[in-house]
């Protein structure tokens, strides 16, 4: 599974939240791919995925959260996906 956090350059709340979110993701899926993408550098990719607000969190190339989730919300979303995949 791949998680991508799209952020605007200089987003302080993204910087503050990312460690907690990454830890939450690793807790549910050890070895999960975690990428942090500056939307300005990855504009075409952000458009392709349908990102319209920043920050946005995409799971497996699908917009999952159009604002920063809490670590708990992310854990629950990942668990739901894992259950679906089984």
């Amino acid at each position, binding site marked *: 599974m791949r998680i991508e956090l799209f952020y*605007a350059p200089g987003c302080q709340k993204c910087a503050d939240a990312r460690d907690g979110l990454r830890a939450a993701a690793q807790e549910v899926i050890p070895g999960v791919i975690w990428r942090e993408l500056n939307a*300005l550098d990855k504009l075409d990719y952000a458009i392709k995925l349908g990102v319209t607000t920043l920050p946005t969190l995409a799971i497996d190339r699908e917009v999952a959260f159009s604002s920063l989730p809490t670590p708990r919300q992310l854990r629950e979303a990942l668990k739901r996906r894992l259950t679906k995949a089984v």
Partner: protein
Amino acid sequence: MPFTIGKIANLAQVSADTLRYYERERLIAPAAKSAGGYRLYERDALRRIRFIKQAQQCGFTLTEIRALLALRGNNSACCRDVRRVALEKKLQLEAKVKAMRVMSKALSHLINECSADNRPLDDCPILASLERANGVKRKSR
């Protein structure tokens, strides 16, 4: 020297009604009112009106413009904050362009399907397709 609404509207190339609308939307406000109750504006209102017009042309809604103007007046905000708003707007515009391209492609398909010019309206594949699409929408509600 303050400007009347007609004068400043003329300088900014908008109508007086537009300025009253901007006022209702809390985008601008007259600096004062004359003894007769007429709105009076300072020169900086001209800059503000031009800013609003330009932002509208870039696709910003009046609500977003209000937020941009608030940022402009916020001493603790910086260019980075405005850039984030602009970046989000670009992403939204690109999403719209993408959706419109899909619509355009669908229309091309319909246009190609309708090859017979003199077919009766009841057999028009374009109308039939639009009606079908409408029916699907209604069902999904």
